[in-house]
């Protein structure tokens, strides 16, 4: 069978989405943000998000700071939180968004869920003023057609583990341009199961072990950089 084009994949995804909605029981939409905001502090985490088996949660989650191109500085109001997402077999349909731990020295642990339509990103920065390097783990997560990457580490490394995950058909969405700063500014092709970027000498090496990645397209599957890329 010929490899599907990116446009065809996007179209078939949209079609499947419409089809599934058309025939689905109209359960109350539940977003990951709602689950996050309702989650209590427990087990040493500021938010211990326990999801429910058999349910689909939509949308992404931003935790931590962002960098403002207008002020050319970090927006420092949001300090970040230690967060656990305990999937219990739930499906996270990110709908093009991300789960992102951004520019904070906090922890994000995700386990036992399915993630589709988005990705998980740890991003940090380490400069003269800031030590904003997140840590965490991604364990026993099935990534089904995630956008861009499965997991991207960007200005983060030591203290992050990715274990026993399954990455299937990561979608190449085109160049990912991230012109944040001289420290974390980089550019990677997308469509990679696990991507680690930016001066890992400064950020250390993550623990990436015992994962399984594959692509339905045999040519892509044979290309190592689609399984793990490192800049």
């Amino acid at each position, binding site marked *: 069978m010929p490899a599907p084009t990116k446009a065809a994949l996007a179209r078939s995804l949209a079609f499947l989405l419409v089809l599934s909605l058309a025939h689905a029981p109209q359960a109350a939409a539940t977003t990951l943000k709602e689950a996050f905001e309702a989650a209590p502090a427990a087990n040493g985490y500021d938010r211990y998000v326990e999801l429910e088996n058999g349910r689909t949660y939509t949308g992404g989650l931003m935790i931590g700071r962002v960098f403002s191109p207008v002020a050319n500085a970090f927006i420092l109001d949001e300090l970040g939180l230690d967060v656990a997402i305990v999937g219990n077999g739930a499906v996270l349909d990110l709908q093009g968004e991300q789960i992102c731990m951004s520019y904070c020295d906090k922890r994000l642990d995700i386990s036992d869920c399915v993630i589709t339509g988005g990705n998980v990103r740890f991003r940090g920065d380490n400069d003269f003023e800031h030590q904003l390097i997140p840590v965490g783990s991604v364990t026993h997560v099935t990534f089904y057609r995630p956008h861009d990457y499965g997991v991207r580490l960007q200005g983060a490394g030591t203290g992050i583990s990715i274990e026993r995950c*399954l990455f299937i058909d990561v979608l190449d969405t085109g160049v990912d341009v991230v012109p944040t700063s001289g420290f974390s500014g980089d550019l990677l092709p997308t469509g990679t199961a696990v991507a680690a970027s930016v001066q890992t000498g400064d950020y250390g090496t993550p623990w990436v072990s015992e994962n399984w990645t594959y692509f339905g397209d045999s040519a892509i599957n044979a290309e190592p950089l689609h399984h793990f890329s490192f800049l």
Partner: protein
Amino acid sequence: MRLVDPAGGDYRVAPGFKAEGYGCLSQSGPATPAGAPDQGTPPAEGVLVSGSQAQVAGLIAVNTTWAAPLITVTDEVQVAPQAALTIAPGVRVQFAGHHRLLVQGRLWAVGTAQDPITFQPAPGHEAAGWDGIDFLNTPAALDWSRLEHCLLAGAVADTSGAVVSGPLVGGTHRPRTGGALSVVGGGRLAVASCVFRDNRADHGGAVFCGHGASPVLAGNLFHDNQAQVAGSVLHNVYAFPKLVGNTLVNNRCLAESAFERCAAVDNFNGKVMLSGNIIRGNPTNHYSGSQLTECKAFYVSDCNIEAFSGGTDNLDLPAAFQGWGAHPYRLTAQSPGLDRGPLDWWNPLLAATDVAGAARVAFGARDLGAYEYTGVVADAPWEGPQTAPLPVACVPNPFNPRTTVVFHLAREEWLAVDVLDLRGRRVRRLAARRFAAGRHELPWDGQDEGGRSLPSGIYACRLAGARGQTTLKMTLVR
């Protein structure tokens, strides 16, 4: 397939596949799909502000409805997280000073095409403008906030480029962006069949989205908004707004540097999903004239975008707007976006009627952009620019190598005056600024932007402004 049935929501590893034991372990069967989005439920009315007119300011801590035909905002209004503010159709909200409407709960401002809700400066406060509507970390569990059939005009975010005070995510300072609407973090927000015009900001002339915000902007018209730097319509930072069926036209970035980030939609480390939009004629001084900055092609589909060749099923064709009347951006029979509107999950969030009041689906399909072509040319009343043909001439014509573009304006207005070649590419910008009422003359020396003499041939002089655009054929004979 190595998974049981991913299309059906069952992502378990198929028995016998070597990846058994990897990935999610606890899924016990097909997941229940998330429901399709609804349009939200109107909040309970609560405290009624009525009478012929009313003045408002301060904290709204319980559900409140503004029903007085004229509401004057005399200081910042803040809707608390547990409260909802409803604004009745036809209400005119005017801001007597540079005040904002800060929403941390719900805002339900649903007008109609006949009775839109307007947000504008009060008379005498036009120069400073008003400070926009800020949705700031609204709780995710809240029902939808919704703006529908609203006019948001004359808002001015800080244009100094300075960081000004304002309670943000934990509360100290943030740069002021997004002229009329700022959405930071938070929950459900739909903005449908609204008009954004004459709003200004450094970044995001009309709208700013930040910190994971994912509002749906559907069927809106954005015109004549200005960004001093970037994003004449939208500036997006670490957020995921969904734009479907909007028209973005004649918005301007004023940055003079040809290498400054600009564009109508300026994205920074986020994902802007664009589907079914018309994005054309938004001038910048950037050397590429890009309408989009850093918007991934993957998320751009079924649009008509000037000078954009990526994405899926997009067009790059003249929009063929009506060009006159109360709705100069209404579609005509020649518009290339007729019946090309996409089907996707945002559609339930589109208003039932377009900006002019036409049913959003006509002839069994939906059109690109904010207007639905119905074949009817009568205009519904709306506060929009009144238009008339723009008289323009070129003297002499034919010419060698100098000529002068002459035009008359009945009132002050902003115009971009460009020379185009036969392929429609801009070869020279003669002016892009506000012109006073009266007669104007712009000489052209037959050279391109680089000072190179252009060859003999036919060129077009295009004057583009709030009233649409006029082109004039010019013949250079060397």
